[in-house]
Structures are given as C-alpha cells and as structure tokens.
C-alpha cells in the first residue's frame, strides 16, 4: 500500500517535470529559432531547412545591418525616446505621488486630485481626437509626440503613492520638525528609501517606450523619424494590403519566398538585445512590483 503510493507519487513527479520541460521548450523555441535563422545561410533559410541550429553559419546579415544607416537612425530614435521618456515618467511620478500620499488633513486638495487622476485613467477621447490634438500642437514628426502624451503614467503614480503611504509616518514628521520643505523631504528621504520600487516602475516604463510602435507610425510622417519598432513593423512585419489583394496565391507564395528571412530575423534579434540586457534587472524587480501593487492600507 505504502509502496504503491510512493510509486504513484514518483511517477506524478516525473510527469510534472516532463510537462514543465515541454513548456520551457515551447516558450524558448520561437526566440531560439529566430536566432538560428539570423546566423544561417540565406538560401538555407529560404529553403526552410533551418530548425535548431544555424545551417551554413555566417554573419552576413549582421554585416548588412551594420551598414544599414536607416536601421541605426531608427535605433537611435528609440534610445533617445527611452532616455527622455523614461526620465520624464520617473520625475512626474515621484512629484505627483508624494503630495498625493499626504492625508487629507495635511493636504486639503488631495482627494480632488485623486478623482481627477482616476477620471483621466478611465476616460479618453479616443484615437482620432488625440491625433488631432497632437497635430494642432505641431508636434507631428517630433520626439515630443512620442514622450509627452504618456508622460504621466497614472497607474505608476498610484502604485508609488501607495508605497509612500506605507512608509513609517515618523519619516515625514521628523522632516517637518527639522523644518525641511516638501521637495527637500522628497529628494532626501522618500526617494532614497523607495529606490527598489522606483526602479520597478522605471524599468516598466522603459520597456513600454522601447516596445511602442503605433505612436511612431501615426505621429511620424517621415520614415527617418520612426523609432525602431515602427521601422521593423513597416519593413518586416507588414504586408502591403493592396499588394496582397491583387496577387494570386501562387504569386503570393513567390513573394513570401523572396523575402529575406535571415536579414529580417537578424533585425528582430538586434531589436531584442536591449531588452535581454535589462531582463535580469527586470526579473529581479517585477515580482516586487506586483507585490507593491497589492500593498494597501
């Protein structure tokens, strides 16, 4: 009886490990496959004989990218956007979270501001009115169209506000007794003790900026101003709808065969590299971030 139970339990364990190994492979395979394609010989990739390892290993597609001026200018637009956008997001988050973390007795307007934030979070004018506002402000084709509309990450403000509220009240009281002003208290006391929480929300806003493609597509008229994701969306992913509907299936097959799989894969890999570089930090913080969201008074 006891023996059969152990046997059952052990085979269950083996089943669990096998299942999770399968899940591991399914999660990793598409990314792995793309890397293998990017290092493969062009004809091998187009013939579809690449699977786990590069066939006819070579670096030619990466060499082409290195000489691709447009790719690098798009990469640079993205880097610029991440730096400016991430910095603005962080500054506005702490500047807004700190006063909102005060009690109503200390800051009478607090609840009014909170309702305003929730209102902005729930309601939006939609795509067309926002586009027209940006156009009216003459921000089309400028980097500000990519960073200013989302400059206040309301959800992050609420998260950090909750975090500030859970810090010991004595911190704030001691600062008031010492006669230090709000900005001084924020910079000298609150920011240093909340660095992990701030790192969490900043990493998320960096990833958001890096991954955004749609605002680049609609606000940038000149392809030179495209951020990297928009550039990739236009050149690698999108199939021209008019072309598609005018072709016969055979012609379409020819077109897809002619597309440069290795070069496209290499571009996708290069666009993923910055994310992979910050992934260890992300992994360190995001569990913390999710717990952060659930901490409430």
């Amino acid at each position, binding site marked *: 009886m006891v023996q059969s139970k152990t046997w059952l339990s052990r085979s269950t364990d083996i089943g669990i490990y096998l299942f999770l190994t399968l*899940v591991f492979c399914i999660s990793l395979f598409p990314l792995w496959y793309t890397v293998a394609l990017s290092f493969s010989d062009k004809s091998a990739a187009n013939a579809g004989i690449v699977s786990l390892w590069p066939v006819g290993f070579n670096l030619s597609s990466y060499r082409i990218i290195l000489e691709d001026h447009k790719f690098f200018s798009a990469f640079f637009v993205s880097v610029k956007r991440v730096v400016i956008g991430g910095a603005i997001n962080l500054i506005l988050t702490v500047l807004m979270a700190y*006063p909102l973390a005060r009690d109503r007795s200390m800051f009478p307007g607090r609840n009014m501001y909170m309702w305003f934030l929730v209102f902005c979070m*729930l309601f939006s004018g939609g*795509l067309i009115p926002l586009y027209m506002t940006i156009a009216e402000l003459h921000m089309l084709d400028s980097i500000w169209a990519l960073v200013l509309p989302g400059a206040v990450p309301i959800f992050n403000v609420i998260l950090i506000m909750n975090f500030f509220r859970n810090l010991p009240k004595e911190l704030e009281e001691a600062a008031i007794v010492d006669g230090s002003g709000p900005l001084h208290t924020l910079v000298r006391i609150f920011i240093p003790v909340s660095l992990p929480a701030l790192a969490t929300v900043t990493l998320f806003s960096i990833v958001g900026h890096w991954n955004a493609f749609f605002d680049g597509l609609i606000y940038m008229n000149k392809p030179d101003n495209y951020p990297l994701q928009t550039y990739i969306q236009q050149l690698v*992913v999108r199939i021209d709808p008019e072309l598609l509907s005018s072709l016969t299936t055979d012609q379409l097959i020819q077109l897809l065969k002619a597309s440069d799989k290795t070069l496209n894969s290499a571009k996708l890999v290069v666009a993923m590299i910055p994310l992979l570089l910050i*992934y260890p930090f992300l992994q360190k913080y995001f569990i913390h971030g999710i717990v952060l969201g659930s901490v409430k008074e």
Partner: protein
Amino acid sequence: MRSSKRIISYHLMLLPGMLILILFSIIPMFGVVIAFQDFIPGIPIFKQSWAGLDNFTFMFQLPDSRRIFLNTIIIASMKMIAGIIVPVTFALFLNEVRTRWFKRWVQTVVYLPHFISWVILSGIMVSMLSLDGIMNRMLSLFGVEPIMFLASNTWFRYIIVGSDIWKEFGFSAIVYLAALAGINPSLYEAAAIDGAGRYRQLRHVTLPGIISTVILLSTLSLGNILNAGFDQVFNLYNPLVYSTGDIIDTYVYRIGLVDGQYGLATAVGLLKSVIAIILIALSYKLAAKFANYRIF
C-alpha cells in the same frame, strides 16, 4: 503659516503633471464632439457642420459594425477564459517542483515573452507560420498539406489566442504563484496527518487557497471584454482575414486615420469607450463586493 506654505508646494509639485494631463487627456475628450459632426479634415472643429446622430445611425447600418463587435467579443472572451485556465494550471504544476534551479530556469524563460513587443513577435510568427516555415514543415512530416495560417479564417482566431497565451501565461502566473506561496504550510501538515494524499491536499488545501485570487482576477478581466489586443491583431492581420480577425480598434484606425472618415471613426470609438467604462465600473464593483478589492 508654515503649513499653508507646504500646501502651496504640494500644489506646485502636482502642477506639471496636471498640465500634461489637461493637454493630452482632457482636451482630446472635448474632441469627441467630432462624433456628432460631418467632419471634414482641414477645417477648425468649431466650424464643422453638425450631423446629430447620423454617424451613429450610419454605424448601425454598416454590415462591418456587427462583424467587428462580434470579432472583438469572441477573441477577447477566448483570451479571457484561456488566460485564466492556462496560468493557473501552470502555477499549480510549478508549485509542485522542489528543485530550486529547475524552477528558476523555467520561470526565467516563461516570463521573458511578456516583455517582447508584438511587432517583434509578429515578425517571428510570420516567419514560422509561412508556407515554407517551420510549422508547415513539421506538419508535412505527418502528411499535412501546407496551410497559410495567417491568411486562413479557420485558423486566425486560434493563432491570435494561442500566441497571446504563449506570450502572457508565465507572467500572469506570478500572481497565482504568490497566492500559492502564501498558503500556510501547517494546513498541508494537518492534512497529511489526517491521511490526505497528494491529490486530496491539492483539492482541499491548494485550490481553496487560490480560488479567491482566481475569482478576483476573472472579475477584473471582465472590463477588458472589448479589448481584443490592438497591437497583436494589427501586426498579424491582413484583408484576407478581416471577416474573423478585424476588431473595433483596428477598424477605427483604418476608417479614421487611413480613410479620413474622422466623424464615423470617433463615433465607433466613443461607443466602445462608453460600453467599456460601464463594464469596468461593473467589474470593480463586483470585485469590491466579492473580494474586498480597492485600487487606492
């Protein structure tokens, strides 16, 4: 005196953010009046002629409207249901693992796709699902004829739902793993003393331990029933699969920014927002009632 000075600084600290929100959230909200106009691009908004509810009546007559609302709801519901079942199952499996390094490796890999953009993932999928891609090559080993997955109305919705689950199941499981880690170990000990085996521990300790989290997250996800995932669908769809894959957001983009029918596009967008807000309010109300949940 001192405290009124503090209050002024508080207002000043909030000022820059408020200006941004007024400029990019509040002002565009007034732009929804376009939904009630015969909007012609190039003329100022207050000089446009009024159309009353014409845009809305026209929208309800369009055969497209029925299709896009149906597609949106079908895709979003499929994602919602699978988006609960798969992460919960995965979390339950992972929770049984005691080997630290194995657990860490699995977690590292399954969380990763969450952070990769749909643009990049679509690029990967287009190359994997094409006629000479690896998917069709594997199927051909079993004698299956090549399938144009992304141009097939039979497959499109499943591909959308499947790839969304592939991207997000690991990350969604974090919440459930946290809930599982929060179950008091003495409950398992007590159950073991009472003679409960592995399966009865699962049924009587583990499942009751996470059911409240599952209910909370399912309730909150109701607010997303009109969000079928613009970034994903936009990057994967094409005119051949409009009948099963065209959703409200992609439609608004096409008729608005591509075809220039601003009034109609804003009307469709407005209808969606109104329904979405009602649903969000409802789901938060339910969540507050059943799980005592509040955002602030």
